């Protein structure tokens, strides 16, 4: 199905889609279109963040939206993450649907209190009387020596916080559909994008649509090893699968799409079929999302595993600057191939 397909080679994807008479959009454009349609159809929706109205437009994902919707609804703000998150939460309680945009996920620790102690707990503390329909968009940066404070992926932290939902779209189709779902979910949603996905192209319908939370997807069916891949690692996993195919290993690639809720059934079913599990994440290893996924398997698929679980992650170090160290820091298709070989070989 065109809306589930991932294209790893961007060079000819436009032609392919055109050939199939399908509308091609980049991840960046898909995000922008989602926000544009939401702003147009619902007066309670507004965007806020440092630079949402500037000529860069958050890597293009909010570019020019202020022209149509004004600077009140596409609101540039001061650098005050915790306070402004509180402002967004207050507005959300009063019936607005704010979308708070952070150019780097690294800045979220600044507003951890308002996210963890307020947004996440509000519906429960109020006995369900007041909910917080807040979407927090944040982008995982990478490369060019961005170093320790501008390259972090922190979804692992939010996994541990009841009351939050966590979304990590890997395709343009999901970027639009999940964002439209998030804004109307009625709960605080951590919407996590990857800078490297912005230029990825795929089929994106023009009309508004949503992709449901908690429904993962098999990006590539296979019988030998289950690779649960997050965000940009989905593409590395598909590439790895192609390589491994040549070696006679049949890889199943699963993209959970949302970490919270997590489509446990899909993962468990796949592992019960393949008997092998590799988790490819875009973050540091210890205490990350991969540990939770592996633990769920250890709890619910005991006896099915034919080999140890493997995690493909960044090492447990802050991000280095030097290109040679960056090179050594980031896993890729090759790393996944290596991990799979160790399981089967």
């Amino acid at each position, binding site marked *: 199905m065109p809306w589930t397909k991932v294209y790893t080679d961007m060079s000819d994807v436009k032609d392919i889609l055109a050939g199939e008479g399908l509308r091609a959009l980049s991840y960046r454009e898909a995000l922008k279109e989602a926000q544009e349609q939401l702003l147009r159809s619902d007066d309670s929706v507004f965007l806020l963040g440092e630079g949402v109205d500037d000529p860069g437009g958050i890597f293009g994902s909010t570019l020019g939206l202020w022209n149509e919707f004004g600077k*009140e609804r596409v609101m540039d703000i001061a650098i*005050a993450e915790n306070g402004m998150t509180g402002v967004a*939460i*207050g507005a959300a309680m*009063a019936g607005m649907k704010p979308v708070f945009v952070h150019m780097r996920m690294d800045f979220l620790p600044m507003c951890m209190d308002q996210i963890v102690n307020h947004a996440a707990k509000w519906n429960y*503390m109020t*006995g369900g*009387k007041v909910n917080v329909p807040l979407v927090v968009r944040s982008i995982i940066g990478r490369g060019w020596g961005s170093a320790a404070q501008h390259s972090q992926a922190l979804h692992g932290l939010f996994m541990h916080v*009841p009351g939050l939902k966590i979304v990590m779209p890997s395709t343009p189709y999901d970027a639009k559909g999940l964002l439209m779902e998030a804004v109307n979910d009625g709960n605080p949603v951590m919407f996590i994008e990857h800078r490297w996905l912005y230029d990825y192209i795929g089929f994106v319908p023009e009309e508004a649509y949503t992709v449901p939370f908690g429904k993962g997807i098999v990006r590539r069916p296979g019988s030998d090893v289950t690779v649960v891949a997050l965000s940009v690692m989905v593409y590395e996993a598909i590439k790895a699968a192609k390589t491994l195919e040549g070696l006679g290993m049949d890889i199943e690639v699963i993209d959970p799409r949302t970490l919270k809720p997590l489509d446990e059934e899909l993962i468990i079913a796949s592992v019960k079929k393949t008997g092998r599990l590799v988790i490819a994440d875009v973050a540091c290893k210890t205490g990350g999302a991969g540990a939770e996924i592996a633990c769920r398997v250890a709890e619910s698929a005991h006896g099915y595993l034919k080999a140890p679980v493997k995690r493909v992650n960044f090492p447990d170090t802050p991000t280095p600057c030097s290109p040679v160290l960056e090179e050594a820091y980031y896993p890729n298709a090759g790393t996944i191939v290596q991990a799979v070989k160790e399981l089967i070989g």
Partner: protein
Amino acid sequence: MKTNLTDYKGAAKQAGPDVLLGLMRTMLLIRRFEEKIIEVYPVQDMKTPVHLYIGEEAIAAGVCAHLKKEDYLFTTHRSHGHCLAKGSSPEMLYAEFYGRSTGCSKGKGGSMHPVDPENGILGTTAIVGGGIPLAAGTALASKMKKDGKISVTFFGDGASEEGTFHESLNFASLKQLPVIFICENNSYATTSPIWQRQPHDNIAKRASGYNIPGITVDGNSVLEVYEAAGEAVQRARDGRGPTLIECRTYRWKGHVGPDCDHEKGCRPMEDLNKWKERCPVVMFRDFLINNSVITETQYNDMLAEIDREMDRSISAARESAMPEKEELLKDVYHITR
């Protein structure tokens, strides 16, 4: 507290007997609501940390007298007085403190997290400084929706030290939001005196840095609070932006619980005695009697009526049902469809 009603120039001057008696009633309600808690607390079946407001009642009463039912209010861990002044039901609050299913949060929040949307209270945070930006947020929503509501946030001297205070005042001033910042300066954060935390004891002084009017009033004089709040509310309703009001007051009881922390050496007993002589309730009662707005008997009737209501409320609350165990896993997420 001035001696004659005629000495007042502002809002208090126009205030008719209804308003004045309303202020009196609100203060008495808060006082007796909490004295009731002190009475039952030793039984140890009201299992929630209570932060008593006794001694500070004039602030909640004086400010809320200007608010409409639909205006937003954010309080703190020290929440009782503000909720009552805004119109919340004593029985619903008591039930919440008893952890009952009939409580405002079905027993899930307790004394530190009251909620009452019908009265503009969208929930309460006990994280110090946490509620300040929330109020700026509801005010932003009101400005965007043009619904005419204003937002008020009460917080302590300690909360004014958090970064959220700075970030919220900056934003509220920039957008000229209809929000009022009421700082209840009782000189202590738990047992830390303000001189161990701030370079001066003048929180209103911070306002000018944000181009916000900042005023200091005697928080134990309900009419002074009423006058200052009146101006601020008008400013907010007129779209002329936020105001910071510092109300000087003093907490009679310990930071948490019904005991007197002075006996534990937390604060000088002289201070307590000094402040007790300036009891907001007594001062205002005497003022009303001297200005013959109320008679001794009328006052006693009011008090008796409130006590009957408190007795009824607390026993009704106590007799209501505990939540089902199943409730534990509910309300973690809002369900839209």
